[in-house]
């Protein structure tokens, strides 16, 4: 009896195979399956909807171009997360440089953060605070925290995505946890 994960992998394998044989609708189905995970991971990394949207577009294009090189050495899910993490970090680095070169300050990006896909205002405000907490962490530490705490991935899966050792990941995760919990005492008092 196959597990849910194994069944999903078989489906992913079939979708990828069909896409590589020329069936474009298979790629659409892959997007539909993973679009929420891609978007929310990008959103947590970048902090705003507009930036997340830009990263998502880049990720989809990379997937479209590079799926032919994917050899199922990891799950498709892990591969997609790796692309999303990498594009997000690259995006953040580019944004930092642009900001430095044009002498903008962080508040100039606030206009872009007004657009959001979260309808409920209460949820939106809470998530905004969480975004601010996450943005406080260095990008790589943020990535580990998000993958572990929010996405619920195992250390082994995170290790495949980030290329870091499990021991290093645990240490990083703990440091991130500490920083966030300290800050949270002010933002989310019990």
């Amino acid at each position: 009896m196959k597990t849910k994960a194994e069944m999903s992998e078989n489906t992913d394998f079939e979708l990828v195979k069909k896409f590589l044989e020329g069936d474009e609708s298979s790629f659409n189905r892959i997007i539909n399956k993973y679009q929420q995970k891609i978007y929310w991971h990008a959103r947590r990394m970048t902090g705003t909807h507009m930036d997340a949207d830009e990263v998502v577009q880049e990720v989809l294009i990379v997937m479209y171009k590079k799926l032919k090189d994917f050899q199922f050495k990891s799950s498709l899910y892990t591969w997609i997360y790796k692309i999303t993490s990498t594009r997000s970090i690259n995006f953040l680095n580019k944004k930092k440089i642009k900001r430095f070169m044009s002498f903008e300050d962080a508040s100039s990006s606030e206009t872009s953060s007004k657009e959001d896909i979260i309808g409920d205002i209460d949820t939106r405000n809470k998530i905004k605070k969480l975004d601010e907490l996450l943005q406080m962490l260095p990008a790589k530490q943020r990535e580990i925290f998000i993958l572990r705490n929010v996405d619920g991935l195992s250390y082994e899966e995170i290790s495949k995505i980030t290329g870091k050792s499990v021991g290093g990941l645990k240490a990083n995760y703990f440091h991130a946890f500490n920083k966030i919990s300290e800050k949270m005492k002010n933002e989310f008092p019990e």
Partner: protein
Amino acid sequence: MNSQNEKILRYIDGEMSEKERFLFEEELRISPDLQKQLNTFQSVNKVFNIYSEPAADEYYFRNMVSGFRAKLPGKLKRFPLQSVAFGTVSIVIACMFLFLLLNKSDNIEKIAENLNEHQLTELINTYSSDKTVSEVVASEIASDASAENVVDTLYSKELLVAPEAVSYYFADRRSDLTSVISDINQEEADNIYNEMINKKYY
């Protein structure tokens, strides 16, 4: 990471065996500090739960595929480096070609510009006589002037006047002087002489 913090994380992440969990919970009962630390970690988890996949506008996700398809290669390209590079090189080559084409002129002044003062004076003195080009060259040869230098001078003058004549003359410096001179007619020689005069005196 110290062992206590690692235990807390393992406990929160549900990675402890039954026995480990039992021992840890016993430890929690007797250690208020450990309990406080655990509460802090658990509150972080609780808060971030809402960020798992919050309710959002489904319209955005429904249109993700069509939005992506609209931007696929053909319409969305990164900076087309190859095309720009090819275009730039083509433009540069075209400009160089145009430049060479436009600069090919019958401007005889250029012949005189390449001569220094001493050469100019010498040549004017030589050509101010009524001798023909052939006679002048012959006398140059006779008067110990190196035949090669004369040929070079005549080559450069002729080629400056008419670059298309490059293929017409031998590139080899040992070419027969007489055959070279016979290709420069009197009118061309006169023009060269006039330009030298202009350069020297005007």
